[in-house]
């Protein structure tokens, strides 16, 4: 059993024993609140720390859960075990609306919308007669489970902590899965994720909805714990406090949510006691401390306190090394490959204009299966733009691209990736805090299907093993198997480029587009890369590469397309291109 699992079980057991021990009621209540808060912050860890979005409206989602539970159980005597799902349904509906109107735009519109939503809901709750206005709803019944009453704080403790820990385990499982990698890819910008076939919009919506659901469940628990609801715990200020908990504890880590919730709850209690005495008047002075601490944490410890806790206990918490259990996994399905010599890519007069500037001027060329085609030209010739037009990253002003006989001109990069065209980037795009293996496994996204719920319940392990086996196979292919467990952020530029190639190969492409694969590589590394690419060609792979290193291009390619000022100059075999006076003129200028 891994050390981390042992520690988790140790703490879970400790928590389970607490109510049976003579712990004062005060601390049980505190722990109950900490569990409730941690469940909400957990959603923010997922949203802010992992996906790079944020929300100030989590308290409002807690309110939706709480008010639904209170209203239905008080007025219609509906069982809490039913109201939780009604609350979740309402929460999901609201979250979907907020996500739909904001997530297609840049990241800061979501928090602004959640802020407006938090305020609106607060004023709605405070003014609706049937929600009891500022007094709220009183007399919420206690929960019962199989006839057992959960009225006491000590018995309710179990429900709160079972929910909180299950949620934490679910999120930990989720992050280490196909869906989890897709969510983590959101922070690395959309272009790479989309090129791997990931719908970034869909996953942004998913994360926001998941975070809202965690908040809603916490609200449901809250209503039956307090036995009364009123608007004040769901105001915007509380929403900001949840974010504060996540940031303070460590927004990038599941256990940071628990650390933050515990710290804020305990410190808040002390401050509310001491500050009014210090200032000689009552009021919420703790906000001054929270605000200042929040700014200081973001300045000096942006990753929060949890990573420091981990460092302190590093001896007892060895970093998690992935167990290699995928050796005997079945291979992932492969797509049918085109026949050698078949017309694979047909670029027909593609054009890109940025205002008055023609970056790519009606360029046409073709690639047949099994060919390595080089795209060369002086700086600014429009090579990378042509690449982006072919792979769907940029939209074309005019012209057609046919891939395997199908017109893909109007398709997004994600759809083109799905059809078997994969690419690397001129500036390496990777996820530095994932291992090399996980980065490469991202390429296998389209070849697998396990979803969120499967991942949380660990029902995706068979497929996960297949994915990791495939990722490892591609790493072996390019000779990087020894660095498999290294964090991608620790790689030098050369190996990082190689890793991108492995990731692209992991998508099982029919055509591979490499944007300056040899840039920044040392001589030996270049030779190794050329060997790998020849080997790929031998296996029937087709390649299009943009490259500046002439030796590399001339020795490797079958045909070369030369571009200058956005226009195709000539096309031919390396020997023809080398002999061409136009190409010389383009690179070196002409004699007068």
């Amino acid at each position, binding site marked *: 059993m891994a050390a981390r699992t042992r520690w988790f079980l140790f703490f879970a057991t400790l928590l389970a024993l607490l109510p049976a021990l003579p712990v004062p009621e005060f601390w049980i209540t505190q722990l109950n609140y900490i569990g409730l808060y941690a469940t909400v912050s957990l959603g923010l860890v997922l949203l802010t720390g992992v996906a790079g979005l944020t929300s100030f409206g989590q308290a409002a989602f807690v309110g939706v859960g709480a008010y639904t539970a209170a209203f239905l159980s008080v007025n219609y005597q509906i069982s809490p075990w039913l109201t939780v799902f009604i609350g979740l349904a309402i929460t999901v509906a609201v979250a979907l609306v907020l996500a739909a109107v904001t997530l297609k735009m*840049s990241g*800061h*519109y979501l928090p602004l919308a959640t802020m407006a939503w938090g305020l609106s809901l607060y*004023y709605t709750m405070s003014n609706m007669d049937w929600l009891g206005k500022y007094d709220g709803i009183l007399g919420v019944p206690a929960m019962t489970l199989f006839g057992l009453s959960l009225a006491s704080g000590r018995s309710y403790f179990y429900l709160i902590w079972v929910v909180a820990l299950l949620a934490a385990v679910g999120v930990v499982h989720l992050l280490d899965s196909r869906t989890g990698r897709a969510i983590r890819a959101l922070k690395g910008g959309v272009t790479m994720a989309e090129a791997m076939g990931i719908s970034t919009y869909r996953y942004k919506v998913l994360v926001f909805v998941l975070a809202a659901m965690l908040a809603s469940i916490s609200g449901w628990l809250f209503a039956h714990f307090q036995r009364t609801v009123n608007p004040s715990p769901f105001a915007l200020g509380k929403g900001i406090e949840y974010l504060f908990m996540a940031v303070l504890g460590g927004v990038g880590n599941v256990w940071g949510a628990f650390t933050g919730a515990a710290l804020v709850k305990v410190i808040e209690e002390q401050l509310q006691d001491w500050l009014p005495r210090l200032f000689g008047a009552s009021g919420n002075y703790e906000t001054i401390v929270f605000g200042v601490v929040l700014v200081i944490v*973001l300045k000096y410890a942006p990753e929060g306190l949890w990573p420091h806790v981990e460092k302190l206990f590093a001896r007892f918490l060895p970093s998690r090394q992935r167990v290699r259990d995928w050796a005997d996994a079945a291979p992932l399905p492969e797509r049918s490959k085109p026949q050698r010599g078949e017309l694979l890519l047909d670029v027909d007069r593609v054009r890109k204009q940025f205002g008055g500037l023609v970056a790519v001027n009606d360029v046409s060329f073709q690639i047949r299966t099994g060919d390595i085609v080089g795209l060369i030209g002086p700086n600014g010739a429009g090579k990378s733009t042509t690449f982006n037009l072919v792979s769907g990253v940029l939209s074309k002003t005019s012209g057609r691209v046919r891939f395997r006989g199908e017109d893909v001109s109007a398709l997004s990069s994600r759809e083109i990736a799905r059809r078997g065209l994969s690419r690397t980037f001129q500036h390496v795009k990777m996820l530095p805090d994932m291992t090399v293996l996980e980065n490469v496994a991202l390429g296998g996204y389209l070849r697998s299907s396990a979803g969120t719920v499967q991942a949380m319940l660990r029902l995706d392990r068979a497929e996960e093993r297949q994915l990791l086996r495939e990722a490892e196979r591609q790493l072996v292919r390019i000779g990087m198997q020894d660095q498999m467990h290294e964090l991608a952020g620790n790689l030098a530029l050369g190996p990082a480029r190689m890793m991108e190639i492995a990731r692209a190969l992991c998508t099982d492409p029919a055509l591979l587009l490499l944007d300056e694969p040899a840039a920044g590589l040392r001589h030996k590394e270049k030779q190794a890369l050329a060997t790998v690419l020849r080997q790929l060609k031998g296996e029937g792979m087709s390649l299009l590469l943009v490259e500046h290193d002439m030796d590399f291009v001339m020795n490797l390619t079958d045909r070369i397309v030369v571009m200058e000022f956005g226009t195709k100059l000539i096309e031919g075999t390396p020997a023809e291109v080398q002999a061409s006076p136009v190409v010389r003129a383009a690179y070196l200028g002409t004699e007068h």
Partner: protein
Amino acid sequence: MDFSIASILALDGVTNGAVYALLATATVLLFAVTRVIFIPQGEFVAYGALTLAVLQTGQVPGTVWLLLIMAAVAAVVEAVDGLRQRRPVGLVAKGAVLTLAVPLVIATVAMVAAPMNLPLVVQALLTLAIVTPLGGLTYRLAYESLADATVLVLLIVSVGVHFALTGVGLLFFGAEGYRNPSFWDERFNAGPLMLTGQTVIIFLASAALIVLLWLFFERSLYGKALRATAVNRLGARLMGISTVQAGRLSFTMAAFIGALSGLLIGPTTTVFYDSGFLIGLKGFVAAVFGGLASYPMALVGALGVGLLESFGSFWASSFKEVIVFTSILPVLLWRSLRDPHTEED
């Protein structure tokens, strides 16, 4: 509703809209130059109104102490940084003195002038002098060292600053609300409409400030430097424009606009230590209407928010906030359909 009620509501809406327009302008300015989504903009509004209210009672307002504390902390932080970077001690000391000089002068004047019961206009000017430097100091303490962080991090810093400034407001001004005397008690009648002197001042001051800002950005070198920083920070830096100075200048302007807005609305409504937040956020909704980028669209948005609020409070008074803040959703939807590009951070 008949015409006279509608026209009264419209006048009311446009009056509030004029103030929201000022705040929206400040929001757009800050976002463009520093990429900071400045949630605490409204706190300066409350500080402005309440500082004047306390001066009216002949006492020294707490914002004076806040000014001194923030200047002292800024001076210490900068001195420590300077010494760490092994800059000459003389230069570091000079920097600290410069940081402290202006706030000290303002605080001294405020303490001497507070009990003198000076005319309202002089007190208003004093209020502007006290609150305006808080903007630059806020930037120096909270944002400057994070200037290259993501928009998301800067936004979270903003809520931290909002929390702190609201709490400080409670500490210095108490939970009680204040209503300032009107700057001009004249009343004009035009049909069913009654125009108070204060309304006229609000219109004139807003219009004047917007024209001044326009002249500043179009005609002055500093204004052009700010615009350059907004377009491209690195490019501006290469042209010798200090992005640090641009940040401090724009925050100072934002605080000035906030304090002025506070002076303008002070006589029309009771202002509490936390009133600024909602007022500021309404300026925000207006700024979002312009995509946090366009000044003219933000002005249109501000008038829209003002009108929505006044008509909303007529039809469903207790839901006017709900109406105003929910209106951001259709606006966002419209923006999302119009310009659906997700920009890469």
